[in-house]
C-alpha cells in the first residue's frame, strides 16, 4: 500500500479495511482528502464564517450503526417575523459526499427544531450551519464515533 496516509486515515483504516473487504466496496471515496464540505458551507453562508453559538446539535457520541444515526438540531431563536432561522445546512466531513440535508424554516414553525436519521460512513464530524433572516450564520460541530459505517452512502 502506498504510504501517503494521513493520521486520520490511518486511524480509520483498520476498521475500514475490514468493512470494505466484507462489503466488496471497490472504490474508497471516503478515504480521500477533503470531500469538499468547506465549499458547501461557504456557498451556503456566502463566504461568511459562522460563529460557533446558538446551534445545538444533538448526536450520539458513539453510533453502532452508521446506517441510521439519530440527529436533532435546535437553534436558539425567537422565530418571529423580525428574527428567525430561515435555513439549516447539515454536512458530514467524512462521507463520500458532504451534503446531508438542508432544512427550511419560517416564523410558522414557532421553534427552530428538526430531527432525522442520517448515514455516516465512518467516524467523522457532523456540522450544522444555521442562517438567520438577517443573513447572520451560526454553527455547531460534533464528532461521532461510528462502529460500523453506513454502506453505500453518498
Amino acid at each position, binding site marked *: 500500500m502506498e504510504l501517503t496516509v494521513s493520521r486520520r486515515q490511518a486511524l480509520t483504516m483498520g476498521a475500514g479495511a475490514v468493512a470494505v473487504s466484507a462489503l*466488496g*466496496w*471497490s472504490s474508497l*471515496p471516503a478515504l480521500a482528502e477533503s470531500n469538499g464540505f468547506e465549499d458547501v458551507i461557504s456557498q451556503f453562508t456566502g463566504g461568511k464564517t459562522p460563529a460557533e453559538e446558538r446551534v445545538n446539535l444533538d448526536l450520539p457520541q458513539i453510533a453502532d450503526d452508521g*446506517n*441510521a*444515526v439519530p440527529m*436533532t438540531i435546535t437553534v436558539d431563536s425567537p422565530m418571529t417575523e423580525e428574527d428567525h432561522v430561515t435555513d439549516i445546512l447539515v454536512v*458530514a466531513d467524512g*462521507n*463520500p*459526499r458532504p*451534503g*446531508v*440535508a*438542508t*432544512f*427550511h*424554516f*419560517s*416564523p*410558522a*414553525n*414557532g*421553534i427552530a*427544531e*428538526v*430531527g*432525522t*436519521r*442520517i*448515514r*455516516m460512513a465512518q467516524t467523522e464530524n457532523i456540522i450544522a450551519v444555521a442562517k438567520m433572516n438577517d443573513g447572520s450564520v451560526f454553527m455547531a460541530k460534533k464528532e461521532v464515533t461510528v462502529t460500523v459505517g*453506513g*454502506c*453505500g*452512502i*453518498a
Partner: protein
Amino acid sequence: MAAEVKVKLDKTEASKGELVEVRALVYHPMETGLRKDENGNIIPRKILNKFFCKVGGQNVFSADLEPAISANPYVRFKFKAMESGPVTLTWVDDDGSTIIAHSEITVS
C-alpha cells in the same frame, strides 16, 4: 406506486399559537447510487430528494434531502397552530413521482 407512510401529530386539537409536533416516516430505500450489485454494476441512485409540509395550504417546513439521509426517511419538526385545516406532507422522488400523506389539525 403505493408507498407506506406513517404520520403522527402529537396533538390533533390545539389552541391558537400552540406548537404541534409532526413525526413522519416513509418507507423508501434511499438508494445512494454508490452501491454495486453482485455483478459489480452500480445500482442507480433513487432517493426522495425533497420534502415539504403544508398546513391549510401554507408551506410551514421543507427540506432538501441528500443520499446521506437514512433509508426509510424519518423527519420530526414543529409548527405553530394558527387555524384548522389539512396537514399535507409531500416527498418528491428522483424519478419525479411524489408520495403524499395527510393529517388534520383542529385549532380552537
